[in-house]
């Protein structure tokens, strides 16, 4: 059994029209059969948020991979939360250094973060702001979600770069072994999730999983990109759409 990871970020229609880059980013690694994966969504109103999303996702995955390789005690949620705080703080430090060097501000790099670390018997979500994480066990009844956190209004959320990021960091323990893990940015949620975000939307996910189960990682990721970039999605959202699916096979 090993992890196979498929991921793609498709630029949104409004970004194509306005000549703005895709502001979503993802990163993942497998260390000692443990999956580390992160999806970040750069804030639309901040000019360098695509760089923020790319830097935060890459650094958090790389730092966390090193930490869990060295420290196998991450099954305790409080210990894991402390590790995530260190790792995110370090990514923020890197952004601050960049902001100083480029004469920009930390807020210019604003992005959200939804991530996952697995272990043999389960794992943890870690999450700041919107986006969504979903996992399923070998028994389909074993499901867990990490839901988006918005303000009163649907178009308000919290960022890694915000002052109150630790208050908005949510760590959730997953109490069962994971067979399928899904992370997504908010742009993908309307068609990947069912109404009310209570579950993955089977008419989308079932054909995708069926296809990926026999595809190579590169072919599967390319097909995922084709799906996310399908013009039919323009009627659903004009936002960037990122989807990361990991299968344990």
């Amino acid at each position, binding site marked *: 059994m090993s992890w196979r990871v498929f991921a793609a970020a498709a630029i949104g229609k409004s970004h194509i029209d306005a000549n703005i880059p895709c502001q979503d980013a993802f990163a993942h690694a497998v260390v000692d059969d443990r999956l580390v994966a992160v999806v970040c969504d750069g*804030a639309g109103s901040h000019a360098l948020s695509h760089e923020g999303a790319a830097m935060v996702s890459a650094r958090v995955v790389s730092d966390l991979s090193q930490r869990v390789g060295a420290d196998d005690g991450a099954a305790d949620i409080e210990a894991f939360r402390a590790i995530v705080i260190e790792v995110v703080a370090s990514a923020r430090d890197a952004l601050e250094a960049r902001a100083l060097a480029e004469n920009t501000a930390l807020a210019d790099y604003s992005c959200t973060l939804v991530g996952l670390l697995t272990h043999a018997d389960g794992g943890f979500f870690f999450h700041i702001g919107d986006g969504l994480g979903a996992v399923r066990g070998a028994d389909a009844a074993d499901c867990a979600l990490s839901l988006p956190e918005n303000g009163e209004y649907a*178009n308000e959320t919290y960022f890694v770069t915000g002052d109150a990021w630790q208050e908005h960091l949510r760590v959730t323990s997953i109490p069962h072994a994971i067979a399928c893990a899904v992370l997504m940015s908010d742009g993908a949620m309307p068609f990947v999730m069912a109404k009310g975000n209570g579950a993955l939307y089977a008419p989308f996910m079932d054909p995708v999983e069926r296809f990926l189960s026999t595809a190579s990682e590169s072919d599967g990721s390319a097909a995922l990109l084709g799906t996310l970039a399908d013009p039919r999605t323009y009627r659903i959202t004009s936002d960037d759409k990122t989807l990361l699916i990991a299968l344990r096979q």
Partner: protein
Amino acid sequence: MNQTAIPDVALVDNTEQRTPLVLVLDCSGSMAGAPMAQLNEGLRVLEQELKNDAIASKRVRILLVEYGGMDNAQVVGDWQDAMDFTAPALEASGTTPTGQAVDMALAKIEEEKQNFKSAGIAYTRPWMFLMSDGQPTDDWQGAADRCRAAEQANKVAVFPLAVGSGANADGLGQFSSKGAAAVKKLDGLKFQELFLWLSASMKVVSQARPGGQAQLPAADSWSSAPT
């Protein structure tokens, strides 16, 4: 990149999100004739424009409050998703109870937010469009204070609109936290252009995403307000 979608995937919108829009419309006697005909035509433009937009037709939720008669404000129908909205034929008569109408609109907005919350439906900040062509005839100061406070508390975005030379633009400004600067003056009777702008704005706002600043279309096709 010429990759096609994975076969057989359903790509449908399961979002349940709404953008409430309340139109508070002056139907006093001074609106009789061409102004009311143009307003009604403008509402039909709004209906068509929103229905023609796949996303806005599902997300924009409209309520009309008309005020006129014997100092009477009333809701026309109920909240409706744009796809179900049919522009009514409003009639002009009577006085201008602006305060009553705004209090009613604020109450309906809070009521609808509670409905959204209990149904688990996400929503964006409600818009209140406050149109008048005259002087308020009721005790409107208290309502203006409450409306301004609601906007300051981010509960609603208020867009006052003065129609014709008889409108009390200074008074309308007191309903907005931005004061007189927020009041737009309708150029002549360009209600159609106004509602085209409003529907274009609603298309933007109903799709607004976290961290984004909604870039509204320019209002210069219908507004004579100095920029």
